[in-house]
């Protein structure tokens, strides 16, 4: 086997320029295909994540009156209480406030979560520190609250939003009533209000009432929209999927063109070696060995192109932003792309080597020796 591989490598070196050309084409087609597949799988992954979320409705707050933005809060504790009444207690509400604290020449970063203690089953009068931030509890004191360790059942949770994943072990939880004291620090982006549509009765009317209430209270400065992140993504992702599909088809077309070129070129190359194969067969080599030789040569050529192409595809996935994907979706490499690339590589290799082998197999040894 090692002899076959060395022979194949030698043959590739003899036809250096043809080999380089084939490798470059394979790299191009494979990298485009891998990139497109990685983007597609990242989008599909995000769609699945949103579809599996229990709280599937969110409140979006956007400020438009710049003059009054700094003077008016988007949501008060009274608004929250009213909304809980409208929704019969089915509203899940929290504020995630990023905190940055400097003490003893050290910088401390954590997230302060203002949440409804009744909903979380926590005792009032305490602030609860996540396991990763317990060291800060003596340095950063919250008035009228005794620091405590966060219960394990809450510490292990992570609350996913559209743009981030809040791990509670990196947070401190304080009562939602605390928001009255820090109203001016609370920006609309920190406010999270969510519902599970399956728990709501008269969902459409209830959501309409909440929107109307909020617009009535703060409509001069903010606009409110309750939406489903899953439906939003489905709609926003439609055009993105179209673009990804076009790129994928370009990659596939390139690989098909490469396959066509490769079949023609290898047919000619193997044609030139008819006599050599005839001599090998006449001297005792079997057809299986001849096939392995052909397969090894094609596989080696394709393999080099494939691995470099996959590598480039993954690098472009992680480090290059072509402006196609929706901003908040994290584009990651996928094992499916890798498996698909290997499958494409095997398919091309088997087709090219198989086709040439069939031609050799159909001829008698004497015909090969005569060069017929």
């Amino acid at each position, binding site marked *: 086997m090692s002899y076959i591989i060395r022979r194949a490598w030698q043959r590739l070196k003899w036809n250096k320029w*043809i080999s380089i*050309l084939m490798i*470059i*084409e394979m790299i*191009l087609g494979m990298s485009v295909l891998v990139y497109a597949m990685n983007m597609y799988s990242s989008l599909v992954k995000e769609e699945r994540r949103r579809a599996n979320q229990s709280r599937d409705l969110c409140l979006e707050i956007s400020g*438009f*009156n710049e003059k009054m933005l700094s003077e008016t809060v988007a949501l008060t504790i009274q608004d929250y209480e009213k909304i809980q009444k409208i929704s019969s207690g089915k509203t899940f509400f929290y504020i995630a406030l990023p905190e940055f604290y400097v003490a003893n020449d050290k910088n401390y970063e954590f997230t302060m979560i203002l949440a409804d203690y009744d909903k979380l089953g926590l005792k009032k009068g305490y602030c609860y520190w996540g396991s990763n931030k317990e060291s800060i509890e003596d340095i950063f004191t919250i008035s009228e609250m005794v620091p405590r360790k966060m219960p394990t059942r809450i510490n292990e949770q992570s609350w996913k939003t559209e743009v981030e994943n809040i791990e509670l072990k990196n947070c401190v939880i304080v009562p939602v009533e605390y928001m009255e004291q820090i109203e001016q620090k609370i920006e609309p982006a920190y406010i999270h209000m969510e519902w599970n549509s399956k728990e709501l009765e008269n969902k459409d009317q209830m959501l309409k009432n909440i929107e109307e209430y909020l617009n009535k209270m703060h409509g*001069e400065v903010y*606009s409110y929209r309750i939406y*489903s992140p899953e*439906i939003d993504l*489905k*709609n926003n992702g439609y055009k993105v999927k*179209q673009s990804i*599909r*076009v790129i994928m*088809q*370009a990659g596939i*077309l*390139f690989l*098909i*063109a*490469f*396959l*066509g*070129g490769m*079949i*023609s*070129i290898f*047919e*000619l*190359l193997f*044609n*030139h070696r008819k006599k050599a194969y005839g001599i090998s067969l006449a001297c005792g080599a079997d057809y299986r060995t001849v096939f392995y030789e052909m397969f090894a040569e094609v596989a080696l050529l394709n393999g080099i192109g494939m691995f470099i192409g996959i590598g480039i595809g993954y690098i472009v996935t992680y480090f290059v932003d072509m402006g196609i994907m929706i901003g908040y979706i994290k584009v990651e490499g996928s094992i499916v792309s890798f498996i698909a690339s290997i499958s494409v590589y095997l398919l091309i290799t088997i087709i090219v080597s198989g086709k040439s082998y069939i031609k050799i197999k159909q001829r008698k040894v004497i015909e090969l020796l005569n*060069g017929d």
Partner: protein
Amino acid sequence: MKRYLYIGYQTWIKIKYQKKRYFLYILSFYVGLLLPAFCLANIRSVDRVFYFTTFKKMNSSVQIDWFSEKFDILFPEGMEYSIKAYKEENFKQWGDKYVSIIGIDEKYAYPMPDINGRMFNKREMKTGAAVCLVDGQCAKTYSYKVGDGILIRDKKCKIVGILNSSIYSGIVIPYQTMKDIYQNKEKIQFTGTFWGESNNLEKIADKGTKIIEKNDPKSELISTTTGMELYKNALTTKKQWRIVRGLIAMVALTFFALNESIVLIEKRDEEQGTVGIKLALGASRKEMRIEALLETFWITGIAVLLVIVTMNPLARMLQLDNVIVVDGVIIAEMITISLLTCGILARCSIKKIKLYPIALMLKMKETE
């Protein structure tokens, strides 16, 4: 002349005799020319996008975009303007699809695409009749035809036409109809296009902005852009798009040319013996070059024909029919580029004919 016709006939006989082999060559040429063809057709579609995103007298216009709940804005008599309203509506009946609802007035600036049906008439525009135009994709997906009704919020609008263009996606209704549906219910995005003298546009923009704010103090101004700026942006986008797709087409064409030149050179090497015999019997090297050119021309010509014929069906199959345009210009470009490539390939394949003496060629084994 008779000799050249004879050479052409000989080439045709040769192709017929080695049908299988030439079929593979044609297939390989066809596949290699597909990607550049799609890139060229995509470049052409950019021209179409450019056409639909620009309008006449654009350089003497200014556009103001704003959010408001009010549709009635009283601009002074002398002002030449057109207002468009835009809203993205969640169509639950279409599987929660966000559909663009565009409200246009009689002076709508942008060109309308071909309509399968009819455009709104003056009366419908003025009175806000319950009529609409639907884009072709939506009509196809949800099986709508002219005469059917679509529910937009609580208003049922009759489809009077279907838009044959991918530029317009969604539903187009008269401005007054949109006012009936959305007035004072929620914030709508408005685009006002104002025309005037080029040196007066800033004043017109200021005036327009003040009128909008006076009419609705709760309105939110988004942007003010001159028509010239919009035109330049559209032009820049068109150029960038053309460059990117042109580069892809060039790369694809280069690799195609390299692949096929290798194949053709190897093929010519095999035929050295036959070429040597022909030269020995009195054919000139020029005639051999013409024969090589004709052979490559036949293969390329058939492949290009196949590309042109199958492009639209393939595009429909791959759902790319809205991003490519196959018209006379594309066909002419494809034929020109293919002939040039064919010439280059033929030249590469006959290079060696010049180099070897006849005696050497006669010694080489040919496989024909």
